[in-house]
């Protein structure tokens, strides 16, 4: 087996802009899936609206491309009905934290055994570059000419309202930590959330002064440093994993990684 077996390469090139970070997530996800034995018979992808949502169409899995913001109720129901399946959610920050925010806080509370990969590009990319829930305060966007008015949502804080949840922070530049986070998240017996900083050069980067995707990646390289081992909290621009007490909620199946270990 190889990464390309996980991908519908005949549909390439993808619709993503040159320099987009989403492909770096898909490649690493496909590679981890290959390593731990996730295939179309034991795994379902659930994706949301936004550029990231297209990922399900490019992977060799059964895939549910949901309405905007509705990945989590769909994913949870699939896991409930078919606890033997690995359910992987891939979605953007706007889909997860804004329009899907109510589902996010309640999925965190219910602790279903599903894994969420959040492509966090701090912008609504597909619609042209409007302020999102994760846009840093003061950022000029298509819908905030004077700078984004509010501070971004605290995803780590939200996820960790459940002492049993799993939160990881990484960037698309840091492929090693991203790989580790995806592997551990899939194996985690409960709700796992990977917050992946990812560049959107066309509809965010250029507007805020970056000349290329390379420059944005270089910024991730310079800004982000590994957090402490066994961290209970990550500072801004720290890479790492914050793990709660692992428990499997009543009625849910054990770890979703049955085939891979």
């Amino acid at each position: 087996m190889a990464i390309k077996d996980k991908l519908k390469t005949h549909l390439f090139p993808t619709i993503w802009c040159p320099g987009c970070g989403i492909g770096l997530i898909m490649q690493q996800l496909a590679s981890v899936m290959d390593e731990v034995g996730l295939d179309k018979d034991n795994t379902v992808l659930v994706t949301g609206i936004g550029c990231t949502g297209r990922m399900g169409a490019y992977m060799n899995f059964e895939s549910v491309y949901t309405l905007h913001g509705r990945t989590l109720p769909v994913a949870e129901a699939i896991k409930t009905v078919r606890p033997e399946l690995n359910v992987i959610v891939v979605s953007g920050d706007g889909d997860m934290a804004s329009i899907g925010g109510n589902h996010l806080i309640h999925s965190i509370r219910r602790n279903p055994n599903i894994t969420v990969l959040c492509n966090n590009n701090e912008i609504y990319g597909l619609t042209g570059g409007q302020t999102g829930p994760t846009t840093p305060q003061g950022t000029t966007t298509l819908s905030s000419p004077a700078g984004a008015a509010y501070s971004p949502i605290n995803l780590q804080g939200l996820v960790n309202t459940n002492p049993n949840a799993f939160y990881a922070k990484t960037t698309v530049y840091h492929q090693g930590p991203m790989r580790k986070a995806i592997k551990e998240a899939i194996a985690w017996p409960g709700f796992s959330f990977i917050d992946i900083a990812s560049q959107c050069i066309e509809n965010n980067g250029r507007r805020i002064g970056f000349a290329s995707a390379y420059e944005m990646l270089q910024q991730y390289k310079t800004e982000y440093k590994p957090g402490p081992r066994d961290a209970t909290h990550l500072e801004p621009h720290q890479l790492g994993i914050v793990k709660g007490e692992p428990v499997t909620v009543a009625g849910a199946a054990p770890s979703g990684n049955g085939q891979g270990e």
Partner: protein
Amino acid sequence: MTKRLVQGNEAVLLGAIRAGAGYYAGYPISPSSEILAQASQYAAGHPEFRFLQAEDEIASANAIMGASLAGAKSFTATSGPGFSLMQEAIGYGHKIGIPAVVVNVMRVGPATGMPTMPGQGDLAQSRYGSTGDYTSFAFYPSTVAECYEYTIHAFNAAEESRSPVIILSDAFLGHLNEVVDLDEIKVPVVKRTIPPLASGGTRLFSGVATYADGEPATADSDEYIRQYEEMREMRRKVAERYAFHEFGWNKASDTLVIAFGITRRVAQPLAPYFALFRPIRIWPTLDEELGAIAPRYKKIIVIEGSDGQYANVVERMLLRRVERVPLLGGRMSLEAIREGLDRIGMLPKESSTAAAEAPAEDGAKAPAKPKAKAPAKVG
């Protein structure tokens, strides 16, 4: 088995279980809440039946779509604004072709409206609530026994039409208790029609317009029209097997009353004076069935719990004017019907005395057996 008192809402749940439902998600809202509560009680004793009290109706409606794709017959129940919140997911189900059942126990709207009063004002929303064009199925029973029976039909139609089918009820019917023996009601159950997720394929279930291979077809009008017409034709054919309606009362009268759901029961004392057409399948409309009998009647009166939602539909179906008796603000009583008939000069002269003498319907007796061809595909 035995006859016992059953509530309308309970009968819906029991019908769903009889149809093989394996997943319920919902959010409490009057007057549908008994379905949620009783589903939770059933789930406690039956681990194969999965239950979620979700954070809202948006989550509930999306969860039943995911559950259905995963392999479980699924349903939700709601009322009023909850039904509004579910419309986006209902459209998603129509686009993708997901069997599911959505129960709407109607109250008086819009907005929070009158939460405990019966209404019939969600007919248009149950047809056109989501965006775009799609073919809705909606059944509206009149009795507790029918709540059970047509919920099973709704699950069957959902499988065959691959769409979210609506069961319409109302605060009156949902909370009505009648003595019935549900075991005497035999409806064949249709098996699942779509292979569950992870059955060896790599399907993409997309709310976005796509080609068969998953590539976006978002600017291809011809492909959209091809897919839309294929779905519409498939659902039209399925609808032929679910043409549920009732034609009765005094067929020799020169006036036809159209009433459905609980309103048909309330209007029962008018039986000696009018013919009755009761659509049980509200959507798709029963153009052929109504069209065959309507020419026999000089006048048509639509009695309904909204300001003309179904009357407008009848006028469109028959291309002729109809008289209207709207029962508004939850006032769904015989008195209100008589006042409405009087306003349009259609109150039967003998009404005040003869109605009292007319054989009033036994509360436990179901209306005459409705006509419809049996579903073809059974399992």
